[in-house]
């Protein structure tokens, strides 16, 4: 029903948009914009056995065709080939199949506009939130964690087929509605991958069968949607969000299957329980300080538990995620961003197994410092993220050299420390140095 309403809305917009085309149709060479980039990314794993961990050639190509002032079409693709799978035999075949090469449609959007209304229909990223490098209210798109959270966030987000309607209600007040039948979950690394997540520490004496996570990606029945109301008043930028979705991360429900005379088999079935995300974001400039904050309450969130008395091995813990961040530029040259975030479970955290959950409250502190030399053509930066309760950390220093207007050369490192089953500690032996060249056209 919602899909039908969406189609009617798009068709209603399309007619006037097409009508306006005749008056403002640009010549096609001016109407077409093409740009892209090519990158060569190299990573070397420092821990024994030190070896090449990435030898990736990536290409992006995107085009935008402006049909009129009221309509345009965008298409973007991304492809890569990672030669590390040919250069080494460290990774199993399933990882090679999953990560060695890829060609994907990153964007295919028809945008229609009519005065204060804008409709974007197609494959896209819909990004909510004020903060940088975090997903508290960035809940619409699933994420690709095959290289953990190390790539840029636009690369981490998996585009979805969706309808995104933005309506400007008045000066500084905008209402956005999103609907999608594309219920794709987060993409996780395969077993044996460089950034394979630590497996849930089940201690079963019985044999265990893990079912595949193969729910249909498209489903009208399980379609997702939500809304965001954004208000800007006196420099206070406040947004309220609601999103109804299937949990993007699988939750492994347990059941016992009798196999007489053999012992029962424990079946682990990945499911994506329905969750309701209610949240708010805030942004404000106070003189030279920028303050930002986000909060999201996830109702219906479920976690795996190792409690042997729990029937299905899963408990519900509605979860509150929030962050407060401050940006300030020291000495007119040192851009500094500090973010403190916390995950709070509404209930006991005993026996829960998620690497990112340390207890009822899990606190993280992130600091990013960036500066520029030689007229900002040499830009060192460092990102430090500390799990205050877990005792793990990530340090990612990087140096970007803007060699020309088109060519950027970057060297960097990603260092992880901490106990084995913590978010960053699980990659304690994956410390790496990186070298990337990017050419844009």
């Amino acid at each position, binding site marked *: 029903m919602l899909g039908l309403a969406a189609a009617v809305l798009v068709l209603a917009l399309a007619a006037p948009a097409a009508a306006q085309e005749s008056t403002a149709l640009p010549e096609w060479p001016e109407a077409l914009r093409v740009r892209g980039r090519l990158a060569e990314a190299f990573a070397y794993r420092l821990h024994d056995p030190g070896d090449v961990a990435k030898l990736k050639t990536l290409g992006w190509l995107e085009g935008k065709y402006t049909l009129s002032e009221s309509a345009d079409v965008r298409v973007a693709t991304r492809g890569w080939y990672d030669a590390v799978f040919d250069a080494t035999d460290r990774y199993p075949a399933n990882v090679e199949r999953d990560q060695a090469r890829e060609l994907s449609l990153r964007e295919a959007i028809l945008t229609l*506009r009519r005065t204060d209304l804008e409709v974007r229909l197609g494959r896209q990223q819909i990004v909510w939130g004020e903060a940088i490098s975090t997903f508290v209210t960035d809940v619409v798109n699933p994420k690709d964690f095959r290289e953990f959270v190390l790539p*840029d966030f636009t690369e981490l987000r998996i585009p979805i087929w969706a309808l995104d309607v933005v309506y400007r209600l008045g000066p500084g007040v905008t209402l956005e509605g999103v609907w999608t039948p594309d219920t794709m979950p987060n993409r996780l690394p395969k077993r044996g991958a460089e950034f394979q997540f630590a497996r849930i520490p089940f201690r079963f004496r019985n044999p265990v069968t893990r079912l595949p996570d193969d729910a249909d990606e498209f489903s009208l029945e399980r379609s997702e949607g939500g809304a965001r109301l954004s208000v800007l008043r006196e420099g206070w930028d406040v947004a309220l969000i609601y999103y109804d979705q299937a949990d993007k991360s699988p939750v492994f429900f347990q059941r016992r299957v009798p196999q007489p005379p053999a012992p029962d088999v424990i079946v682990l079935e990945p499911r994506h329980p329905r969750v309701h995300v209610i949240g708010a974001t805030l942004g404000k400039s106070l003189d030279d300080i*920028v303050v930002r904050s986000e909060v999201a309450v996830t109702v219906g969130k479920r976690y795996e538990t190792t409690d042997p008395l729990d029937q299905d091995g899963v408990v519900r813990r509605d979860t509150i995620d929030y962050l407060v961040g401050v940006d*300030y530029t020291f000495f007119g040259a040192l851009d500094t961003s500090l973010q403190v975030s916390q995950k709070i479970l509404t209930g006991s955290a005993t026996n829960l197994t998620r690497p990112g959950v340390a207890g009822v409250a899990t606190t993280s502190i992130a600091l990013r410092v960036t500066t520029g030399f030689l*007229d900002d053509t040499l830009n060192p930066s460092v990102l430090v993220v500390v799990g205050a309760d877990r005792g793990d950390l990530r340090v990612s220093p990087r140096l970007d050299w803007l060699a020309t*207007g*088109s060519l950027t050369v970057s060297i960097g490192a990603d260092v992880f420390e901490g106990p084995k089953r913590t978010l960053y500690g699980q990659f304690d032996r994956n410390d790496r140095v990186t070298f990337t060249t990017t050419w844009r056209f």
Partner: protein
Amino acid sequence: MCRLALVLVFVLGLAVPAAADEAAEIVRDADKFRRPGESFVWKITITSEEGKKAPSVDGFEVYVKGAGRSLVRFVAPPRNVGRSLLALGRDLWIYLPDAGKPVRIPFSQRLVGQVANGDIARADYTGDYDVTLTGEESVGGVACHVLDLKAKTKDVTYAAVKYWVSKDGRRPMRAEFYAGTGTLLKTGTFANFKEVAGRTLATRLTLVDAIRKDRTSILDYGDIAIRDVPEKYFDKNFMKSLD
């Protein structure tokens, strides 16, 4: 005698506000050479030079409406294409394709070379500064008024500006930009006055760093179109689709 004294008191009482009014009027007239209209679009090319290094060139397309509202689209070099900057008074957002969303940044953050965000996003001084007429000087052989501009609020890029405006025609000629501490930050020179849409505009501003004199940024204004810019251009929720 008594009547004469009364007239003198009256005249002196009016003199100070009258001088302030004249100073404000001079700045208002000079601003007209730096702003084509209430709502307009123009392209700004910034050529930054530092010593013997090869100059770098950055291109921007700027949409302006009313006071303090502007959208800056980055059009060159290729590494910056896709970025945009939205200024609504003191509030500033940058859209970075890598982030996929608008991100708030401090107004004081540098844009490129010697150019602050405010140099691009705000084109006039009227309304932002209290003005005092301090004297007269010659700039390049042109007789000029000298004005001291003090920021009314912290919501502007520079705490103070010393401004030279030609006596004949009230054209902006030169400006010195100061920090709140009184430190001279940079010097600006206005040039290349051209007729655009029935109005004379300064189409070049050269900024020179006060300490490193070999650091300069030349702002060239071109492709000027006076037209009504839609309101949604000044809404951060539409920044992505304007890319």
